[in-house]
């Protein structure tokens, strides 16, 4: 096993292990913290997949944006004077079984499906390629996404506004 593989499995282990912690930890902030490592790990996977731009985006938006938002959410919705924010789970047994079954199904599908394999030649710069695609082929979805973001922004602002009584 080469060093590259080692690194890869380390990243995978980090990702999956911390993801497991996210969904099992009894402390909310620890979950968020584990999510941080999961997201970093996934960014690492992207690097292995030669998607450096997506990796960067992942860190900027997920870590810098969404995760912070989540932490804010945690702090705004709990008595912040209490450090040990714990939370409980339910239907763990049933959930576990169901999810395991689902995973088994998925795995079977992955392993048995005849995937169309074509090793894409890694583009010289994925940034340029992505940029071109976004501005030409995916212009409309791109614009729609911007509208979606705007709508989400306005919606979120409206939702969390204090009702003027």
């Amino acid at each position, binding site marked *: 096993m080469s060093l590259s593989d080692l690194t890869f499995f380390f990243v995978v282990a980090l990702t999956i292990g911390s993801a497991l912690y996210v969904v099992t930890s009894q402390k909310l902030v620890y979950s968020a913290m584990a999510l941080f490592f999961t997201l970093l790990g996934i960014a690492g996977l992207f690097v292995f997949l030669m998607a450096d731009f997506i990796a960067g985006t992942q860190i900027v938006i997920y870590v810098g944006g969404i995760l912070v938002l989540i932490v804010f959410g945690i702090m*705004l919705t709990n*008595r*912040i*004077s209490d450090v040990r924010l714990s939370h409980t789970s339910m239907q763990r047994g049933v959930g576990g079984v169901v999810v395991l079954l689902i995973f088994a199904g998925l795995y079977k599908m992955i392993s048995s499906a005849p995937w169309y394999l074509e090793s894409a030649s890694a583009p010289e710069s994925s940034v340029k390629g992505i940029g071109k695609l976004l501005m030409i082929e995916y212009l409309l979805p791109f614009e729609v996404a911007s509208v979606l973001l705007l709508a989400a922004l*306005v919606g979120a*602002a409206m939702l*969390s*506004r*204090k009702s003027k009584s």
Partner: protein
Amino acid sequence: MTESLDLELGSVQTEEMVLNMGPQHPSTHGVLRLKVLTDGEIVTRITPYIGYLHRCFEKHCENVTYEQVLPYTDRCDYIAAMNNNFGYAVAVEKLMDIKVPEKVEHIRVIVAELNRIASHLLAVGTFGLDVGAFTPFLYCFRDRERILDLFEMLCGARLLYSYIWVGGLSHDLPVGWVEKAYEFLDYFEPQVEEYNNILTFNKIFIERTADVGVLPQEVAISYGVTGPNLRGSGVKWDLRKDDPYSIYDKFEFDIPIGTGVVGTVGDCWDRYYIRVREIEESVKIVRQALEQLPRDGDVHEAIPKKIRPPKGQLYNRTETPRGELGYYIISNGKPIADRLKMRSPAFTALSCIDEIARGWMISDVFAILGSLDIVLGEIDR
């Protein structure tokens, strides 16, 4: 699009939180504790808790002779000890009907005004510090140091002078002091411009202080707020002019009042700027007093051998840098006062904090507190 989306943090509903400011906190100017109820960063109520520095001043006064009270007055407002000495001396002199020599009066006015400058410098500097400007603080201290040097030359002490005695002074002016004082004034006068440049008219400083913590006139009067704080609210009231004691009626000076140049009348900036301008006025008074100072005469001349005021009572008030300092003295003819009550200006100024800081943000509480310029030694006594 006239109405912009209100995306600031304040619009998210949060729970009220109790924040204990002090008694150990960098910006409470002493051991003051403020229990602050906040909603996010917005202050909903402030309850001051004082008394951490209570030293039984009034109880002491009922147990020691009039002469012995004097050092205690130093320790009440330790930032402006000369003014406190002055007020006490004037009160007892009135009670005993003593007339002090001209020279003594002049020297008293000079040191009192110098101490007023020193005190205001401290207030201005720390106020800058409260809103995050560090450099003006050190500039102010640099200049305050020179005044303290003058006082040291005068009586050997740098903070607690006990210089002004009942009926006179502890020491006569040392040789060369007047020249040094002139030298200081010549150096100091242009410095005020520097403070204005670095702090007063700084855009961020104005943003932070203008319109913040407005203290309206009626409220100020009702809360018994006096001194620069009252004048900041636009009331032209200064005991040196309106109820002159000592020889203040001999000098020409203005009483600056808040005009709301950059915000509302009575906001933090006004209170701050009053102090800057009072520094200028005090410099004027010191110059006049130095010019009129009689060169000969004995400063100990009128000091009574034994201080034993006749039976009676008296409420006497003088203007310290923080406002009206009142002494209520009841004498029953003994060398020890029957009752000596000190009415301290900072005490009244602090009492209005809840009224004016409510609804502002946490950062503003410090700006407001700083603008009131309180000295805990005087509040707690």
